[in-house]
């Protein structure tokens, strides 16, 4: 049977509990970031369109690049044990592998960064949280891309 709804005046007040009544109703249960009456102003940019397209195209290219990279590094020709300074120096002597690694670095960082950006937009409820998480993300992406590119271009096999 139905659980009886206790009339308000019979509720025993304990500690911090508050009495709610038709004159003093509790706040309604609101969802995060509700749409307001005001129509959002159109920004008239194609950023989200290009972002969406970039995810699809870079994804296709990354499948080839990353699987190729994993095969070379971990499977073919003795597996992971062969990877050392000499191995990397040998590969980066060729502009082809330099280009491969550079393209893979940029695409992977931008693809992953854009993916995380959408995750933050979807899940971070506070405008402030969104802003700081995205700032942190962009800083991390920029740092990794700059450092990685720098190493690929200025790599010196005779460093020792």
């Amino acid at each position, binding site marked *: *049977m*139905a*659980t009886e*709804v*206790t009339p*308000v005046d019979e509720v025993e007040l304990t500690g911090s509990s*508050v009495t*709610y*009544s*038709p004159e003093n*109703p*509790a*706040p*309604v*249960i*609101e*969802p*995060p*970031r*509700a*749409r*307001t*009456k005001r*129509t*959002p102003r*159109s*920004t*008239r940019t*194609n*950023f*989200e*369109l290009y*972002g*969406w*397209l970039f995810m699809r195209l870079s994804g296709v290219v990354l499948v080839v690049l990353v699987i190729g990279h994993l095969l070379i590094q971990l499977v073919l020709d003795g597996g992971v044990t062969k990877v050392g300074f000499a191995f990397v120096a040998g590969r980066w002597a060729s502009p082809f592998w330099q280009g491969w690694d550079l393209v893979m670095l940029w695409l992977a960082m931008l693809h992953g960064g854009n993916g995380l950006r*959408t995750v933050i*937009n*979807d*899940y971070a*409820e506070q405008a402030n949280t969104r802003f700081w998480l995205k700032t942190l993300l962009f800083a991390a992406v920029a740092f990794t891309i700059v450092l990685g590119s720098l190493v690929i271009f200025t790599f010196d096999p005779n460093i020792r």
Partner: protein
Amino acid sequence: MSTPTIDEHSSALDEAEQGTSHLITVTLRIRRFNPEVAAEADWVDYQLPIDPKERVLDALHKVKWEIDGTLTFRRSCAHGVCGSDAMRINGKNRLACKTLIKDINPEKPITVEPIKGLTVLKDLVVDMEPFFQAYRDVMPFLITKGNEPTRERLQSAADRERFDDTTKCILCAACTSSCPVFWNDGQYFGPAAIVNAHRFIFDSRDEGGEQRLEILNDKDGVWRCRTTFNCTDACPRGIEVTKAIQEVKRALITRRF
């Protein structure tokens, strides 16, 4: 010569006349919220005998009319056309008036909740205003240029077929409130608004498609769709909602390139 009389009733006939043999006992577990009593919503169980071929709406009526009159929910036509009684039944968005008790496992308690992502006002009633605001924002009306024709605006059967699926929308909000992106961010237009934009974007008589595409190209438009297909599953009219959203995306891309 014998005429059947009351005295000659068999026990089976008696039972049928009582009309209870086909009833089963179900438990309705309803998410109730009354801001005039408590600040938090909680689950309340109601047990009632009901014909398994009845609908969840009939069970809700039985609760409201015979057990607890304070239960609050919306319904108007009660036949799946007005779109008032969308609710989350056993964790899925459905119309209470189109869901039969026998189809949702009456052995276990049947959970009934308000649709998610909208402000709960009382029990199963939510504030639909943000939903309708998103609908209005895509301009769901015919936009044309030039003089009005003296006769009706003609359209071929093939042109009408192009957007036939999205004309079926009854604005019940089952799709929008099943969308995980909408749950977290009500700024997203949501599937229902995009479906109703699709209905005019692909209408050969309409000339405002460009404006609507521009609106949906924005950061809270179609690009926030994650193609989880929750909306297609939820739609009580069987509209292929995710497909319609994808068609708008495709139109945006082919317009640009």
